[in-house]
């Protein structure tokens, strides 16, 4: 039987939040014990494909606070142009705010090639603790299951984070010829939940 909290969230999730692209995210965790360790690891493998994809990892950068440009539509992998530095604030308050170019536009403003995507009210880098760019599957997995480094989130909180943060939805519909993150947002949420139900296994766990 599902945990009451999970059930409650599942109900909210099932009610669904309409996404910008018209789809809903449903948070419906598998029954406890229904996911084997191997299935959990397979789910993690798919999660890693997402977290290490340029659409996600370009912003999950380290303490130099410099977002990256990489992936099929960017040519050579390099730091974000214009010498952009998001600062310790991670929103560029010390230099040029990310919002200067990534201004929010109700129309999305993200469908032209090379245009600064304008899909969220605030555009910012994730915390330094969530540095993913160039990291291994073991490193990202260890980070993502560590409450001290993942914003004190369990699988439901992670899934919920994916559900309501519009900047993350953009990763699956980036427009402008950009390559989207693999799978779909719903599949990714399902994988996170499956991984959690399986006990957050990571490769090379003893």
């Amino acid at each position, binding site marked *: 039987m599902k945990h009451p909290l999970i059930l409650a969230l599942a109900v909210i999730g099932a009610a669904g939040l309409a996404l910008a692209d018209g789809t809903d995210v449903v948070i419906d965790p598998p029954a406890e014990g229904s996911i084997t360790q191997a299935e959990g690891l397979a789910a993690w493998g798919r999660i890693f494909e997402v977290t290490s994809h340029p659409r996600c990892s370009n912003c999950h950068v380290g303490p130099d606070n410099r977002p990256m440009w990489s992936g099929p539509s*960017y*040519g*050579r992998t*390099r*730091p974000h*142009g*214009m*010498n952009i530095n998001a600062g310790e604030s991670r929103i560029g308050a010390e230099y040029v705010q990310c919002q200067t170019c990534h201004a929010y536009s109700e129309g999305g403003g993200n469908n032209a*090639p*090379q245009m600064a995507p304008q899909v969220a009210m605030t555009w910012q880098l994730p915390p330094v603790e969530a540095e993913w760019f160039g990291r291994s599957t073991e490193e990202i997995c260890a980070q993502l299951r560590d409450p001290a480094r993942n914003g004190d989130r369990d699988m439901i909180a992670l899934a919920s984070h994916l559900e309501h943060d519009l900047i993350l939805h953009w990763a699956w519909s980036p427009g402008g010829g950009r390559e989207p993150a693999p799978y779909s947002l719903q599949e990714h949420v399902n994988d996170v939940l499956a991984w959690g139900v399986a006990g957050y296994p990571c490769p090379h766990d003893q």
Partner: protein
Amino acid sequence: MSKLKTFTRRAFLVGSAAVAGGVAFGTYMVQRPHDNPLLDGLADGAAAFNPWVRIDATGITLITPHADIGQGVASMQAALIAEELDLTWGEFETEFGQPAAAYWNTAMANEGAPLLPWDESFGARTMRTSVSSLVKVMGVQATGGSTTTPDSFIKLREAGAMARETLKLAASRRTGIAVTDLRTEGGAVHLPDGTALPYTDLAAEAASLEPVQNTPLRDPSQWRLIGNDMPRIDIVAKSTGTLAYGIDLDVPDMARASLRMNPRKGAALNSFDASAAEAMEGVEQVVEITGGVAVVASNTWYAMQALDAIEFDWAPAAYPAEQAEHWAALEASFTEERLDSEWLNTGNVDADIPGAEVMEAEYRVPYVAHQPLEPLNAIVLVEEDEVQVWTGHQMPRFLQQQVAAITGHTAEQITLHNQYSGGSFGHRLEFDYVRQAAEIAMQMPGRPVKLTYSREDDFAQDFPRQITMGRGRGAVVNGQVVSFDAQIAAPSVIRSQMSRMGQSVPGPDAQLAAGVWQQPYGFENARVRTYAVEGLSPVSSWRSVGASANGFIAESFLDELIHAAGADPLEERIRLCTLDDVSLRVLEAVGEMSNWGEALPDGTGRGVAFVHSFGVPTAEVVEVTETAAGIRIDKVWIAADVGRVVDPVNFENLVQGGVVWGLGHAINSEITYSDGIAEQTNFHAHEGMRMHQTPEIFVRGLENGHIRGIGEPPVPPTPPALANAIFAATGQRIREMPFWNHIDFV
């Protein structure tokens, strides 16, 4: 008025350079001056003593017919006229003027004739005169090849002096005071009693006089403007965003168009389906033109959007589809069959030199795009007896011919309103965009049509810089370079460009060897050969043309030889520089400026390069530091000899701009083809240099040589100086542009 007077007044006799052609030929055709275009339709009471000065009661207008593509030549031309005409800076208007044979470029022969710049032999002078005569008879009005200053330097001062003396004569007639007792200052003739007669007040009387010819030019010690800083006449408008470029112009009742051509440049359009586009908002008309389709709409954005909705079936490219095939074609071109010319052969580069170490290396220089910030655009209005064109262009008279060929008018019926251009770098020597605008306008007679390229179409249709491969072979012995053999394979820019103007060019292409064979090094054994590669992408003049690629090859390879010899890069160049004393002093100057030889911190290195291009010896030292984030370019020192620096601030700005341009392209830029289409569609994939990457740039202008221009010469030494600096800092030798394929930059 006598018949002779009528002739000279119409024809004017300005220019010792302008009449030089007649000395050798002695033919009427060459000696005959061109008509003064300002006299056509000149208002009563207005004076136009020659093609560059028009004065009436309301003001003074200086005609500055060279195109201003951002390099500041409208100011420079005006300064030369104003210097002798005693005008206060800025108290005059300027106009680009109409296309006219009178504005033929007296300096084009310097680059048109395949001669060493320091060759002053009788044969060389005769050849220059011969080429110059041809340029004059054809009335070639052109801005390019860094020729504006050498073309203008004497001619426009003579024009100012002629106007000044004619105005003084008018004042003398009015007052009865001898001309020798009159002086000029601040746009007025001053009488001995202190009375000032403004030129504008004297214009009507002066207009009735025979212009005074052959006035001696002022001694440089009397110059007020030349050699001093002058705020560019466009500086306020450019700084405040109010200067109207061609792309900013509106003509009443104007239709707006954009186009889509076969992205495989020059190939045909098989068919298209515009049914969806025709139904889109704002679309007025879909027009087929040669090789593509234009959409005419109520605004340019609607036109561009509609183009994306058209389905096209394009013909394949006439050149190889894939980039690797382009390189393969170059590799296969070092053959006797493709030999275009042997430019230099002294000693014996094939001889075995006892104790010598022999080295070989191959270099690659990619296609790059021009990409001025202002995308191509033109407004054309076709009417029964006249065609008007508004655009920025560097070859006004050829433009008239190109448009006339489409519209069926005579060239004289084509009026060009030349505009300031937001950059060119060679792009506005091409005619496609004007021809296309004319084709669209032909289908909408009586209505002006403004054609504006999207940035993406501008990238797709650009004729890039020539792809180039260079092979060096050389020998060093006893710490010295003793043999230097360079072979260059590239498409001929001149033939490609001229073919689009319907002209063929006889003889070898000097641009294939530019930047290599003019190097002033007295190698014991030296050879330079060039090979013309055919069948590749059409190419076009790109800022510094042949030398932009060849300078990198020549000076990188020389640096490798010097390193192998164990010699100092600057000292060995100075030792070798025995053919031209002016060049030697430039090399010495850059050494002094940079304090060459001083100890540098670990990880910091300097590279030097010297290239002689467009008659300008230019030496450059680049300093870089290897950091964890990549190569940081710290400082650049650059010295060039242009004979006389007309405006020190503009000179410094042009040189600094050339260095930044050269660095940015060396680091970041290339055009590659896939499926016959340029893969780089916008600046994100063909980046300029960023502000934070830009080094301090220290500039010195030397004045020992001939009068020359500085638009292009700072570019060629920049990539090799950077590559040599990277080698000095890291030990990594980069033989291929763009460098970021091989090393990271901060």
